[in-house]
């Protein structure tokens, strides 16, 4: 099946199949006031999703349930509640191995329970889209947003995008399927949002019409065989490398790991085409920059306003894709900065570590402020952190 040839035809729900570019940039949009969970429903409605498997956990339960409504309405081919997140992600794997476009969503402890599957998805080149609504994972129990779990997904081989707003979330969901499924990428993607702040608050969202949908997934564009016995099988190998020789095992594993990571890097061109750059910049000629992702950026913008009132000029770099990490873009955007603040919704400061690892003169990077376990990040906390550091370095930096 050539999915391009389906463009302009209608699916069984009467939705017209359109190119992703049309869906994202050209289709007329109407304004709706909706929660992030409702955004999931509207995104999936327009995404030609074949299979979705669900398990409840706060704050994603509502989103997973709304996808169930879509199934009853006939927009999703198959849907059920699995027995736990590890099983759900395994069920998603089976569905994807069989050639379906697969969506699921999870959160916090659910993400960790599912974890073993993520590197397996990536290694098996399964372009599953998982929405991660981040929340605390540690004890004592918390259901509040915390991006610690994103830090734990970093090295699974998956693409990771982090949306700041409901609008961006919608666009990331739609673009995410397309980028993840490109034959030169074809790896899973985690589209992350900050739980509650995006999932549960209402926001203005510009929606494309409900009677159009993305081109469906074509399993035969996969770089690895689809497990449906439609292409001739073969006895794959005489000696399973896992047992035969350490050298063969090493060579196979190492080259495959590199290939999965290279696939992640190759996603850049498609990502730039569909969601703009990997980062967004505002006033990056300033000496002081705030660099972060998700709603920490929104709070950073408030802090910038407060600081401007005091005559301190601060710029912002928003990171949209955590994997691939925008190395070169960040180096360019921060080349004039004397101080780089990285506010984060987690205790570990993994984002600051990522940034420190790739920038020259990385003593410029201040890991903080941090909030964890669900506090909002009051802009005043960011302002305070910036002023504290400035006070200590008065001579060096002129706000």
């Amino acid at each position, binding site marked *: 099946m050539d999915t391009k040839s389906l463009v302009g035809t209608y699916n069984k729900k009467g939705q017209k199949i359109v190119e992703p570019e049309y869906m994202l940039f050209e289709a007329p949009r109407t304004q709706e006031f909706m929660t992030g969970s409702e955004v999931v429903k509207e995104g999936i409605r327009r995404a030609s999703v*074949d*299979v979705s498997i669900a398990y409840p956990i706060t704050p994603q339960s509502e989103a997973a349930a709304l996808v169930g409504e879509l199934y009853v309405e006939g927009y999703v081919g198959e849907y059920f509640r699995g027995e736990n997140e590890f099983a759900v992600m*395994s*069920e998603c*794997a089976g*569905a994807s191995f069989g*050639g379906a476009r697969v969506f699921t969503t999870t959160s916090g402890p659910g993400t960790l329970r599912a974890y073993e*599957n993520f590197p397996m998805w990536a290694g098996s080149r399964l372009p599953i889209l998982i929405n991660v609504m981040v929340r605390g994972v540690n004890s004592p129990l918390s259901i509040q947003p915390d991006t610690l779990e994103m830090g734990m997904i970093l090295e699974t081989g998956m693409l990771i995008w982090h949306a700041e707003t409901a609008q961006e979330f919608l666009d990331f969901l739609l673009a995410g399927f397309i980028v993840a499924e490109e034959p030169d990428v074809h790896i899973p993607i985690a589209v992350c949002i900050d739980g509650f702040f995006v999932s549960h608050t209402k926001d203005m969202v510009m929606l494309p019409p409900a009677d159009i949908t993305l081109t469906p997934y074509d399993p035969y564009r996969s770089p690895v*065989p689809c497990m449906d016995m439609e292409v001739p099988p073969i006895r794959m190998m005489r000696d399973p490398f896992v047992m035969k020789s350490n050298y063969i095992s090493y060579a196979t594993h190492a080259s495959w790991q590199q290939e999965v990571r290279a696939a992640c890097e190759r996603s850049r061109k498609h990502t730039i085409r569909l969601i703009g750059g990997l980062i967004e910049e505002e006033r990056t000629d300033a000496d002081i920059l705030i660099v972060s992702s998700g709603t920490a950026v929104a709070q950073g913008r408030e802090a910038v306003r407060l600081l401007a009132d005091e005559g301190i000029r601060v710029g912002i770099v928003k990171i949209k894709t955590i994997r691939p990490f925008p190395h070169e873009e960040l180096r360019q955007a921060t080349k004039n900065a004397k101080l780089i603040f990285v506010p984060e919704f987690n205790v570990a400061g993994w984002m600051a570590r990522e940034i420190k690892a790739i920038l020259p003169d990385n003593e410029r990077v201040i890991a903080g402020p941090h909030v964890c376990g669900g506090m909002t990040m009051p802009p005043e906390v960011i302002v305070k952190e910036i002023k504290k550091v400035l006070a200590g370095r008065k001579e060096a930096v002129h706000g």
Partner: protein
Amino acid sequence: MDKIKINDEFFDIMPPEYQELVEEATYGKEDRGWKDVGVAKELIEEHSLCAGCPESIAFRYVLACLPNPQDTVMVGSTGCTSLVFPHVAIHNIHSLFGNQNAVASGLKRTLALRFPDKVKDVVVLAGDGATVDIGLDMTLQSWFRQEKFTTICFDNELYANTGGQESGLMQKGFVGKMAPAGKKFDKVPLPEIARDSGCHYVAMMTVSKPNRVEKAIRNAILVAREIGPTYIQLYTPCILEIGKQMMEGLQEMRDSEGPGKRFEFKEYISDEAKVFLDEVDAERKAKKKALRAARA
């Protein structure tokens, strides 16, 4: 059925295994069965199990008895069996340890969605650790959900691949690694649990009698295709861990299948499945009769 073809210009550069697969395959052959093991090696030729391991012959029987290999996808799990799957010439998935019934659930539903007018069989084949211990919830839940595929457990009564640790299917009192004072509880009665959990065809046996294995495999796959989940438990002793020689596997199985023994033949068939299997049998007999009449 369309046979697989190789473009003439490429024929001589294809690996010999592949040429053979194309020329000799029994894909599409009705009434394939265990007797094809000696001649049809296209589905499995070599294996990397220990010499004499009963899993190797069990594997061959299973593959030779698939009613529809050209449209069957298998799902495995980590364990000794995962060393065999790379040699198997039908699509097979190894994802993780214990999640095989979950993977198969997603797979079967997707294949049903994508190929509504075609039979696509899904068969799970995994060890007892994967089926009964780490994966037990996923095994059972797939049965509760009435997923339409067959689960086959190679019961060697221990975790062989990691060197002989205690398994839920190990017999009580057996001293195994991680059961240093002997296993404390009885062999988990999975066939009974399978029946009560909604399996429509359940069989437990050794692989010492190929006719019986063949019949069970065919029944299980046909019932799963038409009605709902099915389960087969095959005793495939780990000769290495129980200290037997490579020629002793067959005898070990025979010794364990007599009346009152651990692997006395068991079969449960739901009423629905019984009706269906009777129809299948009647059809097959009528076909044979017609064939004989035509020849006479």
